[in-house]
């Protein structure tokens, strides 16, 4: 489920997250596990860097011809007996899904993991329409019980530990023996499997996301590690795929190329456990599969990114490597970002989807360390795109007045070297005198953001330029 964005309160969210000892412990695992696994599996594949280039090029090609490939894709889906529903907005996408569910009289709707579902707040809409939505990915199932949003795009419950999950299961699975042993993670898994198995069998409609849509065949592909996606899409009578328009690739060959970087970048696996292809409804002679196959294709502001400085973001394949390698994500976790997409990719995408006036903190809350870009499998220049948001904010006077004033003051001098030398020369000598005894300051007016947490070193005295000039003139500054 997706609440209203709390992104405007990012600083408060971050402070809370930093004070949450349990969360900090959970984030420690992200900081180590994902990174080491990705590095190991990338090192084992000599052509990994070339594959990243190739993945980038495939996506760029698609984005340059997106209309063409989307139309081809629709034709192929129709040919295979399925139906494409075009949705310009989140509301249209929700309505398209609900209309299908209502028509078939659905009571229970199972769901594979989908970030688009989060983006359009689909579970809330399904429940409001009087139907039951059941997340079948273990992580998603857990956070659905907790009425939380995912805190990571591929590991939605990464912010939780096993004890918290145990207590959630005891609270919600009240029909089971209260004395049962749930101390082992495998016991939690078994319990979730047992419960979900009934839901799979009871479901009238199964909804999945898509990692790829193949234009040449009309196939949708999902990659999962739990197999829940397969049960979600093959057991019910109706399968609905919800996907955003940039998921389309020309051919199966293209998808295979990108698959080689996807799991490696995401979880450090060579391949995910399941890579599942679905093309249209059950054909005569098929042993399983749905009777109806629908694809709801969501735009939600994406086509407006084409041709802008943000187009590169549409290459994103949602692997999560950027957040796995982000020091800010490691510090505050995903919920602090306040909407669906966290980490560096969220910092670029969120302002597009909810407005930079609401999501403006996110592209600012980055050190520009560049580690996200260095691991992105489709080479999205994430820091550059965050900077472009800062430019838009600056142009629209959305950046805080203190920042603008400070920047303007500094730039005034930086543009005037002689004045700059005079002013800084005086200021540094004064500061150096004040800080001489200790060599540093424990507090400074106007810099409490710094000195609340760390000391500020005192300058040495005369500036380098003054000393250099003096030496050149044969005297000491």
């Amino acid at each position, binding site marked *: 489920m997706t609440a209203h964005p709390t992104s405007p309160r990012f600083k408060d969210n971050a*402070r809370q997250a930093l004070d949450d000892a349990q969360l900090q412990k959970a984030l420690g695992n992200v900081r180590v596990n994902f990174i080491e696994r990705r590095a190991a599996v990338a090192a084992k594949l000599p052509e990994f860097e070339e594959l990243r280039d190739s993945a980038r090029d495939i996506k760029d090609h698609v984005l340059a011809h997106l209309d063409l490939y989307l139309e081809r894709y629709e034709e192929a889906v129709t040919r295979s007996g399925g139906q494409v529903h075009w949705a310009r907005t989140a509301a249209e996408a929700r309505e398209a899904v609900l209309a299908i569910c209502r028509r078939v009289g659905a009571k229970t709707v199972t769901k594979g993991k989908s970030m688009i579902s989060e983006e359009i707040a689909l579970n809330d809409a399904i429940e409001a329409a009087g139907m039951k939505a059941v997340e079948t990915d273990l992580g998603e199932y857990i956070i659905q019980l907790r009425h939380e949003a995912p805190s990571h795009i591929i590991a939605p419950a990464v912010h939780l530990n096993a004890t918290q999950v145990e207590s959630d299961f005891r609270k919600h699975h009240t029909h089971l023996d209260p004395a049962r042993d749930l101390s082992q993670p495998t016991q939690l898994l078994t319990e979730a499997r047992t419960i979900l198995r009934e839901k799979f069998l009871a479901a009238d409609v199964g909804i999945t996301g898509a990692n790829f849509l193949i234009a040449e065949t009309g196939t949708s592909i999902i990659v999962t590690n739990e197999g829940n996606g397969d049960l979600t899409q093959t057991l019910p009578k109706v399968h609905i795929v919800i996907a955003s328009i940039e998921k389309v690739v020309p051919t199966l060959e293209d998808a295979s190329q990108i698959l080689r970087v996807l799991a490696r970048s995401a979880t450090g696996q060579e391949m995910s456990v399941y890579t599942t292809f679905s093309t249209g409804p059950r054909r005569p002679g098929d042993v399983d599969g749905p009777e109806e196959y629908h694809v709801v294709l969501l735009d939600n502001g994406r086509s407006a990114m084409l041709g802008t400085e943000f187009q590169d973001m549409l290459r994103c394949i949602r692997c999560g490597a950027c957040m796995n390698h982000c020091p800010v994500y490691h510090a505050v976790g995903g919920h602090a970002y306040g909407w669906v997409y966290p980490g560096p990719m969220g910092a670029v995408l969120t302002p597009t989807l909810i407005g930079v006036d609401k999501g403006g903190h996110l592209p600012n809350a*980055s050190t520009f360390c560049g580690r996200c870009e260095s691991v992105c499998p489709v080479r999205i220049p994430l820091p550059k795109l965050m900077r472009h948001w800062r430019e838009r904010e600056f142009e629209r006077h959305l950046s805080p007045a203190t920042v603008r004033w400070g920047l*303007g003051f500094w*730039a005034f001098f*930086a543009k005037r070297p002689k004045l700059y030398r005079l002013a800084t020369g005086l*200021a540094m000598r004064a500061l150096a005198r004040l800080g001489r*005894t200790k060599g540093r300051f424990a507090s400074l007016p106007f810099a409490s953001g710094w000195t609340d947490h*760390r*000391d500020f070193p005192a300058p*040495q005295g005369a500036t380098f330029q003054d000393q250099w000039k003096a030496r050149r003139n044969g005297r000491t500054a």
Partner: protein
Amino acid sequence: MPENSAARPIRVGLFVTCLVDLMRPSVGFAAVKLLEDAGCKVEVPEQTCCGQPAFNSGDRTAARDIAEKTIAAFERFDYVVAPSGSCAGQIRKHYPELFHDDPNLAPRAAKLAEKTHELVSFLVDVLGVTSVSSDFTGEVTYHDSCSGLRELGVKSQPRLLLSGIPGVKLVEMNENEVCCGFGGTFAVKYGDISDSIVSKKTENVTKSGATTLLAGDLGCLMNMAGKLQREGKTVEVRHVAEVLAGGIDAPPIGAPAEAAE
């Protein structure tokens, strides 16, 4: 590259960086010594800042105005060298981007970008320096500052030169490629988050057992030194150029002058 011949020494314009200029001139003099020892003729044209704070804050107009002045001041040199991966990266990677739509300045920005280098990688990669003479002694650990590492590929060069100093023992800390949490104005705008990031860094620094922490960027160094000192740690913090140049008379970053050896 121009030959380092007696007829015409390599003319290097030192882009000293605003932080070194204002806070720690000793780093600038260390850079001058290293460049002169390698046979360069060093000049310091009047300068202010590379404009990165404006660029990263979204103020492209101010960033361009400042960059234009830097281009004018430095384009006459064979090379431009900065004791900072961040500022060298700004000129090398971002000036061309800043002027890509300006037919007059784009070629000038590109030319300047091409000949601009971070100090230590310039010594090793361009001048072919393989060792320096330094009297520094101590156990050091090296933090790879982000821009130098990821924009300019500064990684092996400082380690090569450090490992050749007889009195220096280099010990690597964990996560040496992870950001220290400085990020320019980020450290002030998002002080809480910056603090969390730098705390992880100082933990890694302390665990390494090194008595001196080095890096190639003064911003990161001030951040890490400030945190170590707030935590009461005794690790000394210096710019790598000071150690490579040797003959240090300045106290470590944030230490009082009286404590100088």
